């Protein structure tokens, strides 16, 4: 059950300080992250002094958590099936079983000072690209309720891009073993450091929520590299009418990915004169404007549900442009919910590239150029084109615990490697691969 208590100020403030400093050191967070945490702590401390409890409202502290224990299996040894660009581990070539895909643990500390001020700190431990499970601060923000219908937040905020985007790590909250990789994998970033405003508008049975956000995010990658999204701005509008819900989202960001191998590759490409520079400008990841739009709808009268989403992404880089969609339907038989999902992603940009025209180059340079062309085409194969049919069931076996079993029949298409990595020579685009997953989701 949700633990919720009101405690006296000095004690709880100390708890928060210990918590957050432990997190800050555990994540070896940057100075900026440390500063943000300090800001949050000051906010929590101030809020604690303003704390007064009338016994019945929701003032005070609460600690809640969620988690998933997952295992995935694939007998395909030609490549690894990977579910996120920010996860190192796949299942298949490097091992028939993997627990890294879906396993995570999250804890959330909430503090409500009064009906104006509240704060939240959410920490999630899951496998990172360095294969470690160090906890990371997923959320750390302070909310000011300007009026019953308008709220402002500052700090680290979830990116509300898709229907399930702002709770995509909380497996218990959605029907699948994991959010459909064709759409959700297109935007692996889940949070932004900045501000947002949420405006709620209710008219009878119609409920509308509009959210605008602006911020930036930094994702550390192994070996000192990193992903930077600056001027990250977006807008989401969610309309509910009875059992029906529609969400429209837009997002734009200035994205740079600084990875050693890419930096040296594009540096060498630029040495091939103007045509090299043209190719490098077209595909590199240095301050590229990335835009994404999506529309999602769901209808859930209780006994059954359907939901579907369509999203487009443009990156002006080797990440490519894609259109993705999925549709899911499920039927609830008591505590048992079988579901079926069809998902597809299509590359709207080139997945092959003629590359450098090497006619007239001396043999040594032409050889080096051919290697560059090969590498560039290998990069473009990672632009996703794929379809997946998933059959699964959720079993709400106990209070607060759900067990999900899911079978995915995954087919990378159009020469793309889809959501596969660590390719072996036997890998063929167009050949289907089966993946089975079992995930135990819980909240506490």
């Amino acid at each position, binding site marked *: 059950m*949700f633990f919720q208590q009101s405690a006296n100020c000095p004690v709880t403030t100390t708890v928060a300080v210990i918590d957050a400093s432990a997190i800050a050191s555990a994540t070896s967070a940057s100075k900026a992250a440390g500063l943000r945490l300090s800001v949050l702590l000051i906010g929590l401390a101030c809020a604690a002094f303003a704390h007064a409890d009338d016994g*019945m409202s*929701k003032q005070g502290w609460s600690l809640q958590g969620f988690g998933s224990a997952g295992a995935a299996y694939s007998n395909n040894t030609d490549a690894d099936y990977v579910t996120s660009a920010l996860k190192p581990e796949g299942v298949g070539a490097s091992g028939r079983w993997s627990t890294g895909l879906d396993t995570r643990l999250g804890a959330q500390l909430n503090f409500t000072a009064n009906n104006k001020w509240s704060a939240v700190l959410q920490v999630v431990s899951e496998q990172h690209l360095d294969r470690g499970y160090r906890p990371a601060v997923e959320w750390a923000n302070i909310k000011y309720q300007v009026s*019953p219908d308008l709220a402002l937040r500052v700090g680290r905020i979830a990116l509300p891009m898709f229907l399930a985007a702002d709770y995509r790590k*909380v497996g218990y909250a959605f029907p699948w073993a994991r959010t459909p990789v064709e759409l959700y994998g297109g935007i692996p970033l889940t949070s932004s450091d900045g501000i947002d405003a949420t405006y709620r508008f209710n008219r009878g049975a119609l409920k509308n929520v509009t959210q605008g956000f602006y911020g930036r995010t930094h994702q550390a990658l192994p070996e000192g590299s990193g992903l930077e999204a600056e001027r990250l701005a977006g807008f989401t509008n969610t309309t509910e009418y009875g*059992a029906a819900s529609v969400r429209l989202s837009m997002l734009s960001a200035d994205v740079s990915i600084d990875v050693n191998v890419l930096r040296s590759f594009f540096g060498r490409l630029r040495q091939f004169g103007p045509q090299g520079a043209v190719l490098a400008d077209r595909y590199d990841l240095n301050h590229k404007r990335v835009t994404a739009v999506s529309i999602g709808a769901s209808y859930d009268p209780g006994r059954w549900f359907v939901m579907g989403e369509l999203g487009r992404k443009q990156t002006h880089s080797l990440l490519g442009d894609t259109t993705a969609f999925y549709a899911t339907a499920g039927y*609830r038989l008591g505590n048992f919910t079988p579901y079926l999902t069809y998902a597809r992603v299509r590359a709207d940009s080139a997945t092959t590239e003629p590359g450098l025209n090497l006619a007239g180059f001396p043999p040594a340079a032409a050889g080096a150029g051919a290697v560059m062309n090969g590498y560039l085409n290998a990069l473009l194969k990672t632009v996703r084109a794929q379809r997946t049919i998933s059959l699964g069931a959720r079993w709400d076996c106990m*209070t607060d615990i*759900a067990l999900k079993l899911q079978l995915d029949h995954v087919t990378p298409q159009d020469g793309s490697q889809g959501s596969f990595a660590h390719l072996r020579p036997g890998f063929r685009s167009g050949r289907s691969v089966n993946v089975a997953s079992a995930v135990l989701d819980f909240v506490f």
Partner: protein
Amino acid sequence: MPAAAADLVVIVSSKNPVAALRTEQVADIFLGQVGHFPDGGNAIALDQAVGSAQRDEFYVKVTAKSPALVKAYWSKMIFTGRGQPPREAPSSTAIRKLVADNPALIGYIDRSALDSSVKPVLMLH
């Protein structure tokens, strides 16, 4: 009377000016979508204990959600920072006493536990 799970009433304090509520209005308050009564007064929901027959029946009738779906709903709300579930009280009598004393509270109890300290605003059959 047969095991009278079929007779639940939604109540507010007799000091509360609200006379009647529709099912959707009650659902909005208990799901944290609306924080006030139609007349503008603060509304704070109070739940029966988790796992109780009253609670399970209330949510099926008012929101068409099973206990697991209610829990999944609150998981979304909590872990996106949008709200916290209602507080709980252990029994119909306890809820009636709390609601009687506080015009902001709204609860649901067995019809047999009704008295004049509270006002029924919706019958659930």
